[in-house]
């Protein structure tokens, strides 16, 4: 069965979400991944949205992380502080984030391109990203991979990955045991090397070479000793994604 790159990324991301765990998602691909996970291996995945929605039965894809879909038939419609308090308290397992730039430690920039005090482009800023990456146990990213995005140094460190490497998060005061977990790109699946806290490719997607990945990356990647090939989306994953999660094809597109 044919599939496109977005379908692959969403399916792969969904597989990382364990049942009985909680995830704060935004709109778009992360929400689709969480919805797919609920319909495949993780029926009791608790989905949360940063504006205050807990455990909705999503009737459609939300457009805003604060719109009424995000708590439609949820079990709790609370406040942003409710969500953030639970994150800070340790009750939230996963979050999905993205940014205009990311470095080898998973640090993200969504604030400015260019110098902060005279920006070439002003971007939205942290929003809840810095909070979620600081406080949730594991941060995932779903992102296109290219050299504009995967940079040697971010112009502005909006949201913490592993900062400058081993021990840096803890030294800064960030909760122990947290940090970037997986980066799912259109080319490969990247984890983080425990010793160095640097990005390490774990699997490449079907048809993608190591050289393709390196060409799309502005810093030196580590590679898992036994590099796998990404398991493509199963027919069941594709069916659920297309028929139940995103029948309007807002996220996965029509191709």
């Amino acid at each position, binding site marked *: 069965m044919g599939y496109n790159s977005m379908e692959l990324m969403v399916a792969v991301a969904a597989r990382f979400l364990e*049942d*009985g*765990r*909680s995830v704060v998602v935004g709109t778009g691909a992360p929400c689709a991944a969480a919805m797919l996970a609920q319909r495949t291996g993780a029926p*009791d*995945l*608790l989905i949360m949205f940063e504006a205050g929605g*807990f*455990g909705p*039965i999503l009737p459609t894809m939300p457009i805003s992380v604060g719109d009424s879909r995000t*708590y439609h*038939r*949820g*079990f*709790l*419609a*609370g406040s942003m502080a409710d969500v953030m*308090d*639970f*994150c*800070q*308290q*340790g*009750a939230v*397992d996963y979050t999905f984030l993205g940014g205009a730039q990311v470095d080898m430690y998973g640090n993200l920039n969504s604030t400015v391109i260019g110098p902060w005090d005279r920006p070439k482009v002003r971007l939205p800023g942290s929003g809840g990203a810095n909070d979620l990456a600081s*406080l949730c*146990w594991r941060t995932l990213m779903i992102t296109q991979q290219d050299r504009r995005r995967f940079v040697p140094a971010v112009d502005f460190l909006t949201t913490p990955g592993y900062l400058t490497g081993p021990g840096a998060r803890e030294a800064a005061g960030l*909760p*122990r*045991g947290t940090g970037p977990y997986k980066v799912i790109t259109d080319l490969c699946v990247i984890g983080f090397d425990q010793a160095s806290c640097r990005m390490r490719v774990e699997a490449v997607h079907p048809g993608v070479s190591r050289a393709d990945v390196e060409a799309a990356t502005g810093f030196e990647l580590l590679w898992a000793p036994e590099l796998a090939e990404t398991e493509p989306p199963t027919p069941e994953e594709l069916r659920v994604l297309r028929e139940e999660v995103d029948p309007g094809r807002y996220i996965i597109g029509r191709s």
Partner: protein
Amino acid sequence: MSPAEFGQGTLFTAPDPEAARAQFRSKSRKLADKLTTVREAVHRLIKDGDYIAVGGFGSNRIPTAVLHEIVRQGRKGLGLSGHTATHDFQILAAGDCLDRCDVAYVVGLEARGLSRIARRAFESGRVQAVEWTNAALAWRYRAAAMGIPFIPARVMLGTDTGTRSAAKLIACPFTGLPLAALPALYPDVGMIHVHRADIHGNCQIDGIEVSDRDMARAARRLIITCERLVPAEEIRREPHRTVIPHFCVDAVCEVPYGSYPGNMAGEYFSDEEHLREWLEAQADDAAFSAFLDRYLYGPEDFQAYVALIGQERLLKLRRLELLIRTGGVPRGV
């Protein structure tokens, strides 16, 4: 007052958010069926030596069934967060369950008078006290619910209450103001009686929440008793009514009249006659022992206690709560 004089008391619970995070991480977010009996919940979730926190407000929306069961199962060496602990405290004192207490309000039953056994627990030295205030304990729950090790406040300053607390005096980094740093309070076990819950533990409360929203989030383990079990769908119809979400909860028990002899908003008023019996029986040790045999040790569970009280009296309390005048002595069914 120097920082050294302030906060000489013992800190009974660690305010470290890292240990608490590990604990909260380990709890499942599954929509599991957590329905059980009070006996089983107390057996499984409360150990000798645990530090406990009781919801409601002393004689209002209290989890009486859990408190009776703690006494019946003979738990010892418990610590207590004494945030307006009145009838709840005297039940635990009757079972000699406690050995330490963060005191905001204890031994009294508000205007009803003092509990002799509660006083004796402290005056004998059996229960170690550290002094706080109601707001301080409420805010300590909030710090824990927020996952921060402390929260600053402008209470207890300049007083012996502050000296005998385990707070710390700090200077505000912005204004220089002296502040009391209140350490996060993570109880080992919280117990709360609510109006409605589903089998997963999503809870609704009518009327005041007192400190239960924050306490439920602060507790490492949480036992819910509810007047009424409702279908999960009822929770999902009004998600802004949920005060406690299921993933905080370890056990759900359906206990009608569960706050008796305390007040339950919209359900039944407090039974002042029975509370007076409790206080008066304490005047004499033998009489009190007989009283406890009758009302606490005798009944095999809370429903048996309620049955002993009888429906006529319970209906009278319902009419009192609902301000229904029946033109004289309320009649039975």
